[in-house]
């Protein structure tokens, strides 16, 4: 029998039981849609995170802090008494392959403008060096970032200027904002407020998402001012610019820094963070795909069940076909073709609906991207991140193939049984 005839015969059998075929296909659709949706969302999420991390903290930078682990925030708490100081940049600058380094003093303060007040992260940095390291993100949208500031000035992130995203500004260039820092008197333990009246000289370009570099919701003051205002030389982090982003260079510099500080600091490279994130994502993806895969297996069992029922119903038909001289392998291919049709239709609709689902989820997700001022620390602000689901060709073809394979594999046994029926016995079947 010609392949085209086998296929159209199989198709006529499927058409006969539309509802049943529809439900079988639905099983495959759900399984495939789940896989495609989960994988394309997580791929999209991964892409946007790595993208933002890459712009957020240039790949040729290292972050030195006294704390262990991820994030240079105020959580720098180790057993050691070692404090990182602004002057330590000089030690780091001596190390081979280091281009420059910049200290960051970071405190959480109240910031007042007009009637309103927010608790925000205030970071003291050397504007010239910081702008050099983060040339992609520490850029003025309005105003100008002064390279050698002497006065009490501030540079603010986009969100500080326009926190509600509706034109009502908290502050803008030429505003004067009041930074209030509360210290506790060492002997009386009473709070004492210090104020810093800063003239806003620049508002940064929107950075979006999060990174370890500049953020939309930070306030920047010159390092010298920070040292005076916070009465300290202690810094939270030192950001190091390496001459190139070769993995070997990055590693050797990291090691050299650790050695220079007798292992009392931790050095995080952006590539290491990216790698960690990628591997975390790979694991998550694997799990998600596994769960979705299980639902597809359930669909496969459904296919098998339906085919066995249909096999019994069609025993007599198979007897007729064999009595007419149909070969066993043709009977087998008719049944497998039915599975191929179910699998293909199911997989095609599954990929399409999975893709639609992924986009719907993405829209809902970014719609909830919380406007307003993030109070998070300098490190990570996830709000406002846009996920664009990504359907890679591998996922696309893989899902199609998987749907098809599952359908065919589960149809193998029923199809084999159909092909083995003996004509007389099948014809006798009531």
């Amino acid at each position: 029998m010609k392949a085209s005839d086998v296929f159209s015969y199989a198709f006529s059998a499927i058409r006969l039981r539309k509802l049943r075929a529809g439900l079988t296909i639905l099983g495959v659709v759900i399984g495939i849609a789940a896989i495609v949706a989960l994988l394309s969302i997580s791929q999209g999420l991964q892409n946007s995170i790595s993208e933002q991390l890459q712009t957020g903290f240039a790949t040729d930078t290292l972050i030195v802090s006294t704390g262990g682990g991820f994030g240079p925030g105020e959580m720098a708490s180790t057993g050691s008494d070692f404090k990182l100081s602004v002057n330590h940049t000089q030690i780091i600058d001596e190390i081979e392959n280091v281009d420059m380094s910049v200290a960051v003093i970071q405190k959480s303060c109240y910031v007042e403008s007009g009637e309103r007040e927010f608790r925000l992260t205030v970071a003291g940095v050397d504007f010239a060096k910081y702008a050099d390291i983060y040339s992609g993100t520490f850029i003025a949208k309005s105003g100008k970032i002064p390279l050698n500031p002497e006065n009490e000035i501030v540079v603010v992130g986009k969100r500080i200027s326009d926190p509600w995203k509706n034109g009502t500004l908290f502050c803008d260039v030429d505003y004067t904002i009041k930074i209030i820092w509360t210290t506790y008197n060492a002997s009386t333990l009473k709070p004492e407020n210090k104020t810093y009246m800063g003239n806003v000289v620049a508002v940064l370009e929107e950075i979006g998402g999060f990174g370890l570099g500049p953020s939309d919701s930070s306030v920047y003051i010159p390092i010298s001012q920070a040292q005076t205002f916070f009465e300290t030389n202690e810094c939270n982090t030192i950001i190091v610019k390496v001459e190139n982003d070769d993995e070997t260079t990055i590693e050797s510099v990291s090691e050299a820094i650790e050695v220079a500080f007798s292992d009392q600091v931790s050095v995080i490279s952006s590539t290491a963070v990216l790698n960690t994130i990628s591997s975390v994502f790979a694991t998550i993806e694997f799990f998600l795909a596994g769960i979705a895969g299980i639902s597809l297996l359930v669909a496969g069992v459904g296919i098998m069940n339906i085919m066995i029922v249909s096999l019994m119903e069609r025993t007599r038909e198979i007897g007729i076909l064999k009595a007419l001289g149909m070969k066993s392998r043709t009977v087998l291919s008719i049944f497998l073709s039915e599975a191929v049709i179910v699998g293909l239709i199911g997989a095609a609709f599954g990929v399409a609906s999975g893709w639609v689902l992924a986009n719907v989820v993405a829209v809902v997700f970014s719609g909830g991207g919380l406007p307003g001022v993030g109070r998070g620390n300098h490190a990570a602000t996830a709000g406002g991140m846009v996920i664009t689901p990504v359907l890679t060709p591998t996922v696309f073809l893989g899902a199609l193939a998987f749907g098809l394979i599952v359908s065919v594999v589960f149809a193998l046994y029923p199809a084999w049984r159909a092909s083995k029926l003996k004509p007389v016995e099948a014809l006798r079947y009531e």
Partner: protein
Amino acid sequence: MTTPIIQTTNLRKTYMLGKVRVEALRGVDLRVEKGDFLAILGPSGSGKSTLLNMIGALDKPTEGKVFIEGIDVSTLDDNGLADLRRKVGFVFQFFNLIPRLTAKGNVELTMAIPGLGKKERGKRAEELLETVGLKERVGHKPAELSGGERQRVAIARALANSPNFLLMDEPTGNIDSKTSKEIMALVIRLNKEKGMTTIVITHDQHIAAQAKRKVQMLDGLIIREEVS
């Protein structure tokens, strides 16, 4: 003596139903020459259908042999049997048409199995249905046809692949006598004009009377044969 088109030697078929042995055939020797018209008669359970199924290669004997044009059927493998069945025109008592296919579709399917092209088989299916007097019914499904019409579709189907012989198991058992006469007239014409070798199982003495040879069966044996 030429090779007979069908020959059985000491054909036996035993079924085991639990511990009970049912001997459906107990040594049947039959020889059919090309162009013969045989009627097989006998009471219910005498083994008529069992014999016909062996000849049509639908079933395997417990003992003995079936030769089709001199070829020992027991030497054929699964594919060989399928090829053989394509050259047998089988007409069943209960029509055995495929319900979801039309009259034409049923006849066409038979030709699609050996791989005949769509155009040719469509044309031939229409011709065959016209021959059996169903020109007006080609597009009807079995459920939309009368018993007699269904049996005519079954005959058209049996003839589709130009079979070497026709095997009919009580072809008129489920239809009225007028229609059954018409159908038998058709079969007799085929035998006379085209020399189609035919074996027909029947309970109907009128039909048997028209056959060249009348074979009487009882308890799995041929007990008598009349040649007219």
